[in-house]
């Protein structure tokens, strides 16, 4: 339970750049280090995070529940939100300094591309777990086209993918 709390505290504290960035973090700790969930469950947890409203980080609830029931999900969600909470309040006091600070911007300019690389790396692992046959591969490509080429909303794409899975896979 302490591991759960500390892991999600860490995820909350270092995921610069938004919710997608937490995916490589969760994979490393929850799947690889602690073995709280399988690769398949990891993919499904993220999928559920996409079909529920709110931030993707809500997938933490699933992991917390698997480790320690309802209390575990409260702990995971609380721990992951705690750093965010204090950062945003601290930011209110330092806003003018943050805004023009060149060091902060240089730091973030380095982190920005790195987290994309990390998301891609996690994406590979997820693709290996999620694309189990030719049909899931084709479906993923079709979804990608819809998202990038035709700018279809992500929540619509994910619901459509689930529907196709229900009827055909």
């Amino acid at each position, binding site marked *: 339970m302490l591991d759960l709390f500390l892991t999600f505290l860490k995820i909350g504290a270092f995921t610069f750049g*938004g919710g997608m960035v937490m995916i490589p973090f969760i994979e490393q700790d929850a799947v690889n280090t602690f073995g709280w969930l399988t690769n398949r469950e990891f993919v499904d947890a993220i999928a*559920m995070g*996409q079909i529920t409203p*709110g931030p993707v980080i809500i997938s933490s609830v699933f992991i917390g529940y698997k480790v320690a029931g309802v209390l575990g999900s409260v702990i995971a969600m609380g721990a992951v939100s705690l750093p965010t909470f204090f950062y*945003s309040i601290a930011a*209110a006091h330092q806003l003018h300094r943050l805004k023009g600070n060149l060091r902060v911007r240089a730091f973030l300019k*380095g982190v920005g*591309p790195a987290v994309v690389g990390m998301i891609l790396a996690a994406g590979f692992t997820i693709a290996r777990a999620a694309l189990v046959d030719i049909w899931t591969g084709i479906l993923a490509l079709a979804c990608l086209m819809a998202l990038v080429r035709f700018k279809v909303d992500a929540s619509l794409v994910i619901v459509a993918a689930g529907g196709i899975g229900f009827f055909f896979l």
Partner: protein
Amino acid sequence: MDHSNEKPEALEPPGLLQMAGVLLKVGATGFGGAMPILALVHDDYVEKRHWVSQEAFDEAVMVGQIMPGPIAVDAVTHMGYRLRGWPGAVVSVIAFILPPFLFMLALTLVYLRYGGVPQVAGIFKGLGAGVVAIIAAAAWRMGKPHLRNVRTASLMVAALLALLLLKANVVLLVLLAGLAGMALFRKPADLQQDPKGSGPRAMKGGAN
């Protein structure tokens, strides 16, 4: 009654309950990642209710992008604090997280109970393919601006390989990349505003 050119004096700070009500609603209906969710918050906070000015809202979005953690949660907590102090921040984060938390908990229970049923497994096969696409699309959207510059492009590839091949520690990677950024981008010219734009409208349709 919807004048978008309202003067700043017209701002009316909300009560805690009012704020909780709006955030519960946004939390329950906000799909598709940080920017579409923030667009909903913008509708209520800035346009309909005049709780915060456009400038303060933009600052909150910037805070969300700079600070770790989900962008929308950061921004909402930050505005809650500026409007009503600590109680405002606490109420904001709880009201915003509660609806998705309950949805997710319900889904988790259903999944753990019926995940093995063939039809349900089929749904998740489909969803999994969708997730791969969403991650790839997010990487594409977030990565495109970095491809134009050799230094940022190299950082991206380096992080990808370090994680994929060396299984490097993610926290260490983030810190190293930040330090590399501080070493590489010393001149103000290196830090020209990113062209991606930061308003909630600018990045619709992404999944964060």
